[in-house]
């Protein structure tokens, strides 16, 4: 159903690192789930409109009026690594 390579690719996309054991388990579990889910693949749903969500609203907008921002110390209070009033993150190697 789902191959090991696909599991590794998807884990990469999702920024998850899986141990060798987790990869094995994941291949089995995802395959089982997908086998069940794949039943909808054979349904003829030609011409059926997809439902993104059930709310029948349009144009729910906000007036362009400023609201108070957070004090900077509050904004940074939860940061794992604040530095010079900013959020520090490791640098991308090659992006």
């Amino acid at each position: 159903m789902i191959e090991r390579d696909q599991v590794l690719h998807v884990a990469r996309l999702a920024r998850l690192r899986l141990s060798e054991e987790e990869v094995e388990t994941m291949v089995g579990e995802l395959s089982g789930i997908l086998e069940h889910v794949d039943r909808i693949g054979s349904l003829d749903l030609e011409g059926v409109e997809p439902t993104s969500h059930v709310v029948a609203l349009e144009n729910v907008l906000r007036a362009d009026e400023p609201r108070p921002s957070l004090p900077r110390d509050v904004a940074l209070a939860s940061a794992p690594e604040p530095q010079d009033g900013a959020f520090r993150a490791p640098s991308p190697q090659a992006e």
Partner: protein
Amino acid sequence: MPELEAVIGLEIHVQLATKTKMFCGCELSFGDEPNVHTCPICLAHPGVLPVPNEQAIRYALQIGLALGCEIAPRSIFHRKNYFYPDSPKAYQISQYDIPICGAGRLGDVRIHRAHLEEDAAKMVHVGSSGRIHGSGASLVDFNRGGTPLVEIVTEPDLRGAPEAAEWARLLRETVRQLGVSDVNMEEGSLRVDANVSVRPAGSEELGTKTELKNMNSFRFLQRGVEAELARQRELVEAGGTVEQETLHFDPASGSLTSLRSKEEAHDYRYFPEPDLVSLAPTEEMLREARESLPELPAARIERYKAIGVPADVALTLATDPRTAGYFENVVEAAGGIEPRVLANWVTGELAAALRQAEVDGGAADSRVSPGAMAALVRMVGEKKISHGSAKIVLAAMVLEGGDPEPIVEREGLAQMSDSGELEAIVEQAMADNPDAVARVREGNDKAIGAIVGAVMRETKGRADGGEVNRLLRERL
């Protein structure tokens, strides 16, 4: 080998000049301390939800209408998923298969689409080199994160670097005149990326394109595209193939660096944003957007040409709507004077006088009122002062404002009306310049200039050039 033709398309990100961000109430700012314009929403704290800014939708509609785009009866937002520290939710709310503005055109270039999205945050790379490669860390400032953007994508209709830069200027002018953005390239409120490829002239197929990122001036845009076209031509002519990649142009060295990620190709996993409902511009929203459109450069040029303004002067005025407005006020104040003459005065002598005086801002901001400007041109037309004197008066008006008449009087610049006095000066000048008189009589017409000059010096420019010429010719 057939000649290689350039094929260029542009992607322009326009930051909208709303008061607040796209999906939260934080104020937009430029150049403030980092992270002073953030809230749980634009920091993507758990549980927050976006609510779109009404004004951003209005501005997007105005841009769409100005570019002649079809407005989608119903458009939706999508999530574009990718991990990067400048993207707090790890997805950008953007539009995907149903953008708010569809196909349109500006000048000779077709618009593919224009859509709404939110801007990323600013990252400052810290570490040894200050460059991305090999640096230790980045500091993220979310002030800019969530700024509303309209991304305009053209069809690949441009055929050269100068054309691309020229068209980008027209686009900037158009967006600027809508008043929906500051369109400042250095500050990043207008960002231009170029998709560049080459193909054998006459071919219909598109070659493999490269993407040039964020050139922050029109000059750099032109130079960057030129450099990339040269690189691609050389490569293809040598039998090589162009590889699809993203390039960064360094204006200092003129070099192009690949920004291509070593990782697998991006897979943005777009899907409809479930936190937002669809946008369906109502008749009223569209009417409001249509009514708020100012006259755009292309239309203004046509209108000025129709009243006799030369094409190049019309273009100058169209790209400067404030001066154009000033010009129109002068036309109104001047009554019957030809707009062509007034336009030349406004874009020529007045602009020169402002430059000379090192006054900041254009005619509309100057001390010269449209009424005073019109009065001055009228005095010249009625031969009350000479053209030369008018320039002196104008220089004074730029500095002190007010009407021209008192300045003319004060400086004694009124045109010499006593033709007896002028005749005497003319005859004296002929007497003082016998050589010139002789040469003119021998058929060297140009030599008359020396005698005219002597008259003008003597009259301090108060003499009418035409009258001086007439008197001289009578006597020669």
